[in-house]
């Protein structure tokens, strides 16, 4: 049995119950949208196409190449899946991969699977795709721009999902942010290079042999809102990284204390809706914190998405 785990598959026990539940909450929403979008996009083909391409990503992750000192580069695949299928289909494919890895091989936990799906499925698919499309918009849709977009997109997606994982670990009190974030981001800045080179190689081959495959992804549903979904996710992550939940946790995260001066300014203005990050009509502190974080994250995400969405629609009418 060959096995080289990436620190992105979080096992059970590393995230607190509250954080895990919020992850599932978000994952369920994204999976629901992804299922509806791919049904519209693919119809009867949804199950066979998504199923076999999920198996493809699983198999593609096994194709590796030696880098140095016993380490090897291999694919995570979220960006590639999103580029060739569109972000929602990419999310669904990655969800299936993560579910099978967790259920069959214990690669990543069950209770924390919600966050694994968010990190390696939703965030990689949307960040990779958004960067790819941005580059295409800046440079025009040429072979070169596709390769450049694929390279940057793949690298960014791995780094962002590592940062997301670091933030989740920090909020759970497992790994302090001031150590975990640079460590995770640093390691994955290197791993991301492997991802980027492989993704470029794959796009190059598709471009040369069957370029029409690449246009399917570029016209898939979700391409317009991808950038804004991503921004929403990032803002929500940023907010939760500095949320008072972190300082409410009994141990770990002393860094919050260091940042208290700075946080004092931000907290008061952004959470007036829910004083002290709890809902008044519930008394159990754990439950209310979970609910408050979930509601807060959703509200932030929803707001950003809504603002972005309306500005996009205005943009399209203006064009």
């Amino acid at each position, binding site marked *: *049995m*060959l*096995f080289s*785990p990436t*620190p992105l598959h979080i*096992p*059970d*026990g*590393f995230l607190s*119950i509250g954080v895990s539940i919020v992850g599932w909450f978000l994952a369920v929403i994204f*999976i629901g949208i992804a299922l509806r979008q791919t*049904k519209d996009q693919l119809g*009867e083909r949804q*199950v*066979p196409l*998504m*199923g*076999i*391409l*999920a*198996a*493809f990503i*699983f*198999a*593609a*992750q*096994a*194709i*590796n190449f030696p880098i140095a000192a016993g380490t090897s*580069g*291999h694919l995570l695949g979220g960006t590639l899946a999103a580029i060739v299928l569109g972000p929602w289909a990419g999310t*669904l494919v990655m969800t*299936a991969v993560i579910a*099978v*890895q*967790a*259920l*069959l*091989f*214990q*690669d990543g*936990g*069950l*209770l924390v699977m919600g966050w694994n799906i968010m990190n390696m499925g939703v965030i990689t698919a949307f960040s990779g795709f958004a960067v790819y499309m941005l580059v295409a918009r800046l440079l025009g849709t040429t072979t070169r721009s596709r390769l450049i977009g694929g390279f940057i997109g793949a690298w960014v997606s791995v780094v962002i999902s590592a940062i997301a994982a670091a933030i989740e670990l920090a909020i759970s009190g*497992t790994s302090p942010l001031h*150590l*975990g974030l640079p460590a995770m981001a640093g390691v994955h800045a290197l791993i991301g290079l*492997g991802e980027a*080179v*492989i993704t*470029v*190689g*794959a*796009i*190059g*081959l598709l471009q040369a042999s*069957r370029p029409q*495959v690449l246009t399917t992804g570029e016209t898939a549903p979700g391409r317009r809102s991808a950038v804004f979904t991503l921004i929403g996710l990032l803002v929500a992550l940023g907010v939760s990284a500095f949320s008072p939940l972190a300082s409410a946790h009994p*141990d*770990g995260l002393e860094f919050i204390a260091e940042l208290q001066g700075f946080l004092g300014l931000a907290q008061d203005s952004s959470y007036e809706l829910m004083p002290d990050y709890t809902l008044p009509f519930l008394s159990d502190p754990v439950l209310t914190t979970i609910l408050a974080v979930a509601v807060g994250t959703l509200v932030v995400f929803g707001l950003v998405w809504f603002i972005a969405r309306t500005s996009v629609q205005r943009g399209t009418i203006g064009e």
Partner: protein
Amino acid sequence: MHIDLTDQYRHSESLIHHLDPRVKVVVTLIFILAVGLIRDGSWIAFGALFLGILGYAAASRLGMFYAVRRSIIAIPFLLAAAPLPFIISGPALISFPALNLTITETGTIRFVSIMIRTFIAVQAGILLSATTPFPGLVWGMCSLRIPRPLVAVIAFMYRYIFVLADEAIRLMRARAARSPEIPGKGKPSFIWRGRVTGSMVGSLFLRSLDRSERVYGAMASRGYDGEMRTYSTFHMRGSDWVSLIVFSLLILGSLSLMFLR
């Protein structure tokens, strides 16, 4: 990532193997939830749940230490929690004045607790996949309110992971056969090797895409209309209900041990 091409199911004629897959899924989830809810340093409760796992493994006739042996896969991740003993403030356990580092008692307790949680939870997952055939595991989830199309995609994926992984291995064998290392010559660059790997991924993608078209065509010609149907139906027998209740009570009992002082 796994390059493990063997199914994880281990057949045996045991009580656990014959349980309804849904009971096993629910019990596993309750177990992992309980492991997560135990407070740091409640060694008795951790111990009780660990004994429970050993008993469960023994009852499944896979051998008491079946899951323990396989649980090492979670070890690399422990690095993420490794700084905890140095970070969390509390009574000092060992000090290294020269390095300006102190291992605190509170931090060590937290680190060890996280380690134990992961260790036990992984074993629960291992036993779930070892005692339940994957199709049963997946289709049983339909009745646990997991959306049917998602279950269908996962079930479909399971059918093809071994096929496509074989294809990936053939690609790698072909690469190994065609790019030997020549003594005296330097290794090719990182970029070159990465692009070759990328091309392999790309051609695997095209083969998968073509395969999915053929499979869809075959399904459509046999009357597939977008809805997955299965012959297998799941019935909760009396013994399933009894097991569900007994296991849940045992887990709750173990959990309540953390209030012992």
